[in-house]
């Protein structure tokens, strides 16, 4: 290679929450020969466009553990990473409007409680007593976990990036990775719009572009990206502390730090592919539904509307690990819409895998891509 611009132990592709949190975690472990490559600006992909929720109420034991570890790290974020990211543990109120789902909720709570998570089961009456501004019509049951919450995703990325930089990592924004150089089944470098960088480890943290970035190294990942839209209202004084979410009802909503309400829903008809346009159909459908459940919204105005990508895996759970084909090629992708909330724990685990060859805090082996070669894929049920 004639033009080698630098040499790093670890080159991370993607300046979202995973990439920057991983750079931070690696530096914390003493691995400071790290660079993050972001083709646009930091958090320009899925992180900066997400709803910012952080929850632990999952349907499998492993996912609950991973999320609980993440919350631990979020709780210490300001002290450890050095940035106020508007983290607020106002809880997650999960609303069920479906008999079958309601039963599942009770099973989930059992699993969650076994892991030591404090979760309440609320009747519709209890919900309307506690939250008189919610219309509980058709509600069957709700669960609530006070230690769930939300934060400002963009600030989290900036916090991680700045902390990593202070410890010696390099962050290259507006720098696209064009190729991953593999020799004898091992990663040796990457080609970017800012030249060639030698490295031993490449991490694919490219969110919506995960499959294409994997192909750069000849690695196959079973991910697809789907557009999800969000709109945000003008602010009200803060009175709505929790994230309200419903899978059967297909919505989520929270009041952000500055008082504005952020909300979204999924669209089953969405086709795979990168698409950052927005549709008015979304505004109409969501506005109507949400005014029914949260009547106070009818007096608010919509300020902004945008879209982001869910990088979906076949079982709606992240894909984390090292390629068995290309040595030194790691990935943390396919978060299926909940990457922000688990990224601190995933990045910690991934940094341990890279540095020590094994995880110390949270087992993520169940998230290896191998699982898709099995016939039975256990799908995470708690996803909007």
């Amino acid at each position, binding site marked *: 290679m004639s033009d080698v611009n630098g040499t790093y132990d670890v080159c991370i592709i993607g300046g979202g929450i995973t990439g920057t949190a991983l750079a931070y975690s690696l530096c914390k472990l003493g691995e400071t020969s790290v660079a993050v490559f972001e083709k646009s600006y930091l958090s320009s992909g899925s992180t900066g466009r997400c709803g910012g929720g952080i929850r632990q109420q999952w349907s499998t034991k492993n996912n609950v553990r991973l999320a609980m570890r993440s919350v631990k790290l979020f709780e210490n974020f300001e002290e450890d990473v050095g940035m106020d990211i508007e983290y607020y543990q106002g809880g997650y109120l999960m609303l069920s409007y479906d008999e079958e789902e309601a039963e599942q909720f009770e099973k989930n709570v059992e699993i969650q409680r076994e892991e030591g998570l404090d979760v309440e089961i609320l009747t519709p009456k209890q919900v309307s007593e506690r939250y008189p501004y919610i219309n509980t019509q058709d509600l069957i049951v709700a669960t609530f976990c006070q230690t769930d919450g939300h934060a400002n995703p963009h600030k989290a990325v900036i916090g991680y990036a700045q902390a990593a930089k202070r410890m010696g990592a390099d962050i290259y924004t507006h720098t696209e990775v064009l190729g991953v150089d593999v020799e004898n089944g091992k990663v040796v470098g990457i080609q970017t719009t800012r030249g060639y960088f030698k490295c031993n480890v490449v991490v694919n943290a490219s969110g919506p572009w995960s499959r294409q970035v994997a192909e750069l190294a000849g690695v196959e990942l079973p991910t697809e990206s789907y557009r999800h839209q969000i709109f945000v209202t003008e602010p009200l004084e803060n009175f709505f502390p929790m994230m309200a979410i419903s899978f059967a009802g297909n919505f989520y909503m929270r009041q952000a730090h500055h008082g504005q309400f952020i909300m979204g829903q999924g669209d089953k008809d969405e086709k795979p592919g990168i698409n950052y346009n927005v549709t008015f159909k979304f505004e*109409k459908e969501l*506005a*109507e539904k949400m005014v*029914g459940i949260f009547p106070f919204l*009818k007096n608010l*105005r919509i300020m902004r*509307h945008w879209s982001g990508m869910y990088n979906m895996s076949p079982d709606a759970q992240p894909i984390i690990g090292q390629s068995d084909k290309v040595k030194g090629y790691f990935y943390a992708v396919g978060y299926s819409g909940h990457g922000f909330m688990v990224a601190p724990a995933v990045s910690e685990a991934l940094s341990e895998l890279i540095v020590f060859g094994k995880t110390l805090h949270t087992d993520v082996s169940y998230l290896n891509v191998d699982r898709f070669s099995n016939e039975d894929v256990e799908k995470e049920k708690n996803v909007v």
Partner: protein
Amino acid sequence: MVNEGPTEKKHVKALVIGAGPAGLCGAIAIAESIGDGKQILVVDEGIVPGGQLPKQTHKFFGHEGFYASVRGFEIGEKLVSKATDLGVQFSMQTTVAGIYEDSIVTYDRNNNSVDEYTADYLLIATGASERFLVFRNNTLPGVYGAGAVQTLMNQYKVMPGESFLIVGAGNIGLIVAYQLLQAGANVKAIVEASSKIGGYMVHANKIMRLGVPIMLNHTIVSALGEERVQGAIVARVDEHFKPIPGTEKEFVVDTICLAVGLQPSVELVAQTGAEIKYISELGGYVPIRDENMKTTADNVYIAGDLSGIEEASTAMIEGYIAGYNIAQKITGQDLSEKISTMKDELIEFRKGPFASKVREGLKKMNILFPSGGYRERTQQSTGPNGKLRAVIECPQAIPCNPCETSCPTGAINVGKNINSIPYVDYDKCIGCGVCVMKCPGLAIFLLQEKEDYSIVGIPYEFLPIPENGTIVKLFDKDGRYVADGQIDKVSVNRKEKTHLVFLRVPKGMENIVRHFDLAINSEEYVCRCEEVSRQDVEKVIDSGITDYEEIRRILRIGMGPCGGKTCRNVVLQIIAEKTKIPISESKLGAFRPPVIPLPIDAIVKSRKGVDKDE
């Protein structure tokens, strides 16, 4: 799959966004060509159509084909009635909230309702928004943009204050100053950061002879006051437009009027996917378009200030060009003759020195306009002594010729090139004064030397109309008192409201007197919605974060009700200043719909056929 549920969208052949001169002329061109105005919908935020025209009480420049010498609000009325006669549909007090992937969404403020449209062709003529200026205490009540002052004063007949400081000596600042003086306000000064007056000299002369100083190389550094504006501090600036310490001056004013330029309103056109480019000569970010006003997006046309900051005549011509092109596509008929006539008009209007920026800007899109071919020398002779005659004090080549076309004896010559400076043939001039009352720049005077005194006839647009014989004070071009004089007589012009007042002045002062009596007797916020100061922005940039989108997400710049219309460019400017990366190379950031806050209940109301019991 995409269009599930009842179809609620209305379809039009052409949707015109903006009912200013460009949009109106575009709609007229389409309607007269396809013969069915009902297929054309003009959507506009204003209460009455006309864009900026209804607030303009001054007479416009240009030639009579485009309403020269007619006052702005009357031009608006004429265009609107023309469009209405052709059947064009109007939806007023309605904002296009966004051009979404699946529809064009309008919000009707009057009915608090939302509608969805699809259109075969879009003519976007959203005009421009005012540039914003960052100085201490700029959030104090009493700080206005010039547009707001005009709206309040000229449309709603409300005076925003009594004594004014105006920032900016472009045409808008000069015109607003004159209108304020007409309305009886006290204009203390106009400050202008650059070393020359940006607007037409004839506009500047109108207010200088009324005694308003135009302070070049000066800017405002602070508004003063606790609850509202009670004063302003201005200072001289160096060559980098930075205030020089020790040069501060204080003005006691209750209102500060900002007229620091316009920037094209590109939000909606950007949402169509049309390519946007930074071309400073055209006012900032503008859509890329061809000479037929077509953008890079299919079936999306633009006209007027959106395509580059200019003025009403060229906006009208661009509107026609865009309109005829759209009509040509809709009908399949050949309108090339009409289009090329309009293009020739544009060439004529853009030949002069004031169009040099527009020419330079358009060159960057490979659209070329020739310059020159006009007379730049002013006439030296003021004609034969003793004869009642016109003198024209029109020192700059501007595209305007009503003096020539109104003269009943053919004594005034501008010539084929409308930019030429007019000359008077004193053999033909009979001193009738028609040109004095027609000239939009109020730049023509009548002179006559008599035995004991001289007569000076001046154009006059103030109230009350003076009585014959009244003793008055006389002032020179710069508003300095020079002598006492007397009203000789007044020709009242009831129709056009520019009266002709004849003054008796001391002999030898006929070329000096140009006005009489009328004694003209904290924090710097970048984003006012979210209260983000310049310091906040600079701090973030200093920490190494230089992308507009990142700064936006950290500071909430542009996340308030204005959606970034005021602050986006200011932030980009600060980024450019601090990073030394030219604004044209920095990333512009996303234009997220809706461009105005959209009431949720209006959206819900628009969902027809879906009834939820509530």
